[in-house]
């Protein structure tokens, strides 16, 4: 039985930081199986988590100073919430892992402690039927586990509540920036080339920078200021952030010299780009529903595409008439 330390090393922290920036993120995992924290006996609680190393590290760190069994499921390096959505943090894998690790011989009790966000993949009554183990969905956050254990394994209201504060949102932004860079950099290059052919180098650089700024607004500014932006729709929140960005650009980057066509195009296209990227942030939250996002996409994507098309028309018409 591997015994693990509950203290994180510098290497663990560097690894987590790199994963936040998308470096080695899909390969940041630990082998699944049963681990011992401290010196657990046959009565010690069994905590279940995913094999994403960041999840594993958060849990073992939270359980520092305690004697606990940690059952790590094979989720292919994906966190509990996303793996539950995919079903890899699921009934089948949990039952399989219980059998494979010989948990029934290691502990005398038949109780497992699962994260609440894992419930989307695990059917507690089926696990009970198939393995004899009873499931308690304990807390949303790993950091509440000590409180849960000290509270006689009873979940309080606060342990059940999701939150999405400034830090929770900001910490998600680096990897989002890295992920959008792949499609956005070639798009910016294409835009630069097209604008260069039509208007010359200076205008091309301005257009490409304005576009990159709109992407940044949608990916980083929209999510960071999420609760301050108006309406519940992510598309509208993003469009609003993009509109503010464009107004700021107009004020600070000599907007009065842009000319009518370019100004109109900027105020149409830049908010559309920001809107699209803030809408993409729905996947990073834990409160948007599939039906809601579908509705936003059905209504929002045609408007965004229309705005981009109109912006293009204005620019081309402006060029032809000039």
């Amino acid at each position: 039985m591997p015994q693990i330390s509950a203290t994180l090393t510098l290497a663990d922290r560097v690894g987590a930081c790199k994963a936040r920036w998308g470096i080695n993120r899909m390969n940041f995992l630990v082998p699944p199986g049963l681990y011992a924290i401290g010196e657990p006996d046959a009565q010690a609680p069994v905590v279940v988590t995913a094999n994403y190393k960041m999840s594993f590290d958060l849990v073992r760190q939270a359980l520092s100073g305690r004697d606990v069994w940690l059952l790590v499921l094979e989720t292919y390096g994906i966190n509990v919430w996303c793996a539950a959505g995919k079903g890899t943090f699921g009934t089948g894998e949990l039952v399989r892992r219980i059998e494979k690790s010989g948990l029934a011989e290691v502990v005398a009790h038949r109780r497992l402690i699962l994260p609440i966000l894992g419930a989307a993949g695990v059917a507690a009554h089926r696990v009970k039927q198939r393995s004899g183990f009873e499931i308690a969905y304990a807390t949303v956050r790993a950091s509440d586990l000590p409180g849960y254990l000290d509270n006689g394994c009873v979940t309080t209201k606060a342990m059940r509540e999701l939150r999405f504060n400034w830090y929770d949102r900001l910490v998600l932004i680096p990897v989002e920036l890295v992920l959008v860079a792949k499609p956005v950099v070639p798009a910016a290059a294409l835009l630069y080339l097209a604008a260069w052919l039509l208007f010359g180098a200076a205008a091309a650089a301005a257009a490409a920078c304005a576009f990159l700024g709109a992407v940044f607004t949608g990916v980083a500014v929209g999510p960071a200021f999420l609760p301050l932006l108006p309406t519940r729709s992510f598309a509208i929140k993003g469009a609003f952030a993009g509109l503010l960005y464009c107004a700021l650009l107009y004020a600070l980057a000599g907007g009065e010299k842009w000319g009518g066509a370019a100004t109109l195009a900027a105020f149409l296209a830049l908010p559309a780009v920001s809107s699209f990227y803030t809408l993409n942030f729905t996947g990073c939250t834990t409160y948007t529903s599939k039906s809601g996002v579908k509705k936003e996409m059905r209504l929002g994507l045609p408007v965004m595409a229309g705005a981009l098309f109109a912006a293009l028309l204005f620019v081309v018409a402006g060029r032809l008439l000039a």
Partner: protein
Amino acid sequence: MKGFRYLEGVATLELERSLCVGCGRCTEVCPHQVFRIEQKKAVLADGDACMECGACALNCPVAALKVDAGVGCASGMINEWLREKKFPGFGGAGGCG
């Protein structure tokens, strides 16, 4: 969720109260406090807070809950759509692997 609400009137969550045995599992798994137990049976106290994760329906021992479960993720849906339409270069990993 404190400080955050998503669109109203879109969630597909349905509770068949006559089937409910009042075990309270739904109140335990729902991270948005959508359910409450009243007179030994579950009620939808706040259906609009539902994010359609499907945890309640999956964990309901008597199948009293129905929801079109999925992930509310725009890029995931776009990637899925592009894959279905077999656009080249979109077979790979999305944001969440």
